[in-house]
């Protein structure tokens, strides 16, 4: 999988050898999370993979327990959630951990994605790694959307109505498909039931793709802020203890943020309308999704044509799949790309701006602004990135990771290692 910079697993006991000959599971874990070499110059932006693994665990654990008490029935779902909040021992804690955990999960995922964009982590040979990440992102959005429907509040119901109605935009078969998705002629009991089933299924699919994601990562190795591939043992440190302890620190800090929301402002990210039981006869004044879906919602609403709007919304994610080939620059890290670096921050501002506009009513200046920002979103991927790579003059890069840390020449490479010409890009 990776070069032998650090000693691999060696069973120390007779039982260890016996077991290792039959099932090298300990070996797999040791080689992946102890002896695995990571670049020595990783900063804290690289700890969000670990944070995300923990958040997935938190969501699955709290979710499994919540499912023991939840009733997926249109007449009882809302009440069963309130029962959890009021009468189940620490039910309020489980429920707030789960609902705020979803937001924290997305926050970490967005930082992780933007980190990948900044340091060009999607470039060869890591295209599959990136695509697996985008698949996880898609699965997360589906899971979160269906999870939000389960409490069966007003926003659950009407959010589900708006989003499932998007499928009616498909020509010819749209209506049929939507009826099939609903299990009826509108969002109702059957919809709730199947969403619960899928909400329980999808996280395990996410976990499966996460395994592939980490597998692909361990084949290609991690990128690092210089964007230069690992060339010698000087460039790397063993995963344990170095990355383990750094990740652990980042996780604890992230938990402080998480706890702030869970214990002090648990309803800050939620919608007050979801404290009202779903009522198919009363539409809320403004139907808004959760914050993490707002940029895509803004793109959807900025297009006057329904089918086109749906296409653009899905297109906004589809371009992410193509990102490794849209970015034509040979240089990975934005640290050495003076122009891309600025456009990256503009892109962040545009994404946040779209999120804000998604939360506002679709009228007047908001629509105009959303159209401009939507245009920019696609301009960034489809025009800017291909052209930048051709016209941008990169800044000089250090010869190796060790050089970047220790100063040019300071990273005195061991004699002979200079002959390892692992120069990719």
């Amino acid at each position, binding site marked *: 999988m990776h070069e032998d910079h650090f000693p691999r697993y060696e069973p120390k006991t007779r039982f260890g050898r016996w077991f290792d000959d039959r099932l090298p599971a300990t070996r797999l874990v040791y080689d992946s999370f102890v002896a695995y070499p990571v670049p*020595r*110059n*990783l*900063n804290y932006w690289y700890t969000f993979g670990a944070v995300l693994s923990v958040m997935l665990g938190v969501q699955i654990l709290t979710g499994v327990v919540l499912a023991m008490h939840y009733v997926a029935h249109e007449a009882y779902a809302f*009440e069963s959630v*309130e029962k959890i*909040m*009021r009468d189940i021992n620490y039910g*309020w*804690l489980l429920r*707030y951990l789960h609902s705020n955990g979803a937001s924290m999960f997305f926050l970490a995922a967005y930082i992780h994605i933007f980190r990948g964009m900044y340091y060009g982590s999607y470039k060869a040979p890591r295209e599959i790694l990136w695509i697996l990440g985008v698949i996880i992102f898609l699965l997360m959005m589906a899971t979160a959307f269906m999870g939000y429907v389960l409490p069966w509040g007003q926003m659950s119901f009407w959010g589900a109505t708006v989003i499932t109605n998007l499928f009616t935009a498909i020509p010819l078969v749209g209506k049929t498909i939507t009826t099939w998705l609903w299990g009826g002629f509108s969002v109702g009991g059957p919809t709730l039931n199947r969403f619960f089933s899928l909400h329980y299924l999808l996280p395990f699919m996410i976990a499966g793709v996460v395994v592939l994601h980490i597998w692909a990562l361990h084949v290609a190795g991690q990128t690092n*802020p210089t964007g230069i591939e690992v060339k010698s043992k000087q460039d790397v440190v063993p995963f344990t*203890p*170095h990355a383990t*302890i*750094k990740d*652990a*620190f980042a996780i*604890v*800090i992230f*938990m*402080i943020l998480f*706890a*702030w929301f869970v*214990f*002090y*402002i*648990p*309803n*800050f990210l939620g*919608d*007050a*309308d979801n*404290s*009202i039981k779903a009522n198919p006869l009363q539409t809320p004044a403004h139907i808004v999704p959760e914050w993490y879906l707002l940029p895509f919602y803004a793109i959807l609403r900025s297009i006057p044509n329904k089918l086109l709007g749906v296409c653009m919304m899905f297109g906004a994610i589809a371009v992410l799949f193509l990102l490794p080939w849209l970015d034509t620059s040979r240089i990975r890290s934005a640290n050495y790309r*003076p*122009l891309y670096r*600025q*456009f990256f*921050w*503009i892109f962040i*501002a*545009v994404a946040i*701006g779209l999120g*804000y*506009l998604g939360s*506002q009513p679709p*009228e*007047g*200046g*908001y629509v*105009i*602004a*959303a159209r*401009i*920002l939507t245009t*920019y979103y696609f301009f960034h991927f489809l025009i800017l990135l291909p052209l930048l790579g051709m016209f941008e003059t990169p800044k000089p890069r250090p010869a190796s990771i060790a050089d*970047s*840390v*220790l100063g040019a020449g300071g990273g005195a490479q061991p004699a002979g290692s200079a002959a390892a010409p692992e120069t990719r890009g």
Partner: protein
Amino acid sequence: MQIAITRLAAVLLLALPLGATALGAEPEAEHASPHYPLLNPKLESWSFAGPFGKYDPQQLQRGFQVYHEVCSSCHSLGMVAFRDLASTTGPHFSVDEVKALAAEATVADASVEGGTRPGRPYDYFPPAPPFPGAHPPDLSLIAKARAVKRGFPTFVFDMFTQYQEGGPDYVHSLLTGFQDPPADMTVPDGLYYNPYFISAPYLAMPPPLSDGLVAYAQNKDESADNDVPETVDQYSTDVTAFLMWAAEPHLVERKAMGLTVMVFLVLFACLVYYTKKKVWLAVPHEA
């Protein structure tokens, strides 16, 4: 030059959503739907706000009395059981008081002769009597089910100030906000003008409170030290606090546990940080 252009573009793009806000908010008359409420809720100081917030049992008992004597004639409180009233971090009624309060109520029970019996602590509050027309909302979650948008940038600050009292502020403003309509407004018959109402300038609920309407049990003891005024403002504050407890009965436990968790996490973070420093001591890793 290139850099200057991108900087300019960044500023313009950043200014766009804000400009849109101004545009979106300005031409009020052009909009199909004017923005409600006409007035934003007044900010009150609540005992349960902030990281160390707690309910005041005395206030919740008064609030319960207001709910019991006034609100309950139209609004139910279906998710609250009589036993909940004994909660030590909530209204903290004694067990005997809870039994007596429950017994006052008549609850439906198909297993007894006649179909009804006096309530017991495990029973839930009985539904409000039948109402002509649209049924007034159940109040179990009302303190969490109403929120007036705080807008940018206030909602960002709310994250740091832990402002979570939008619901109670709204309920209190609504209860105290009934007034004569402006001269140029005609209020339909049977509706009452209230600029704090979230979805229209008027609502179907008549002003429910008036000075002296409820004689607080607390004011009947010999001591005058704990007497509270019997005014609309006081009633409204008390009943709102009670409704907040009804909507979020574990708030006090939550915030208390939050303190423990925070202290633990901060100490643990320090330990992990110094361990990390030690591990990386021999490895220069930052440019």
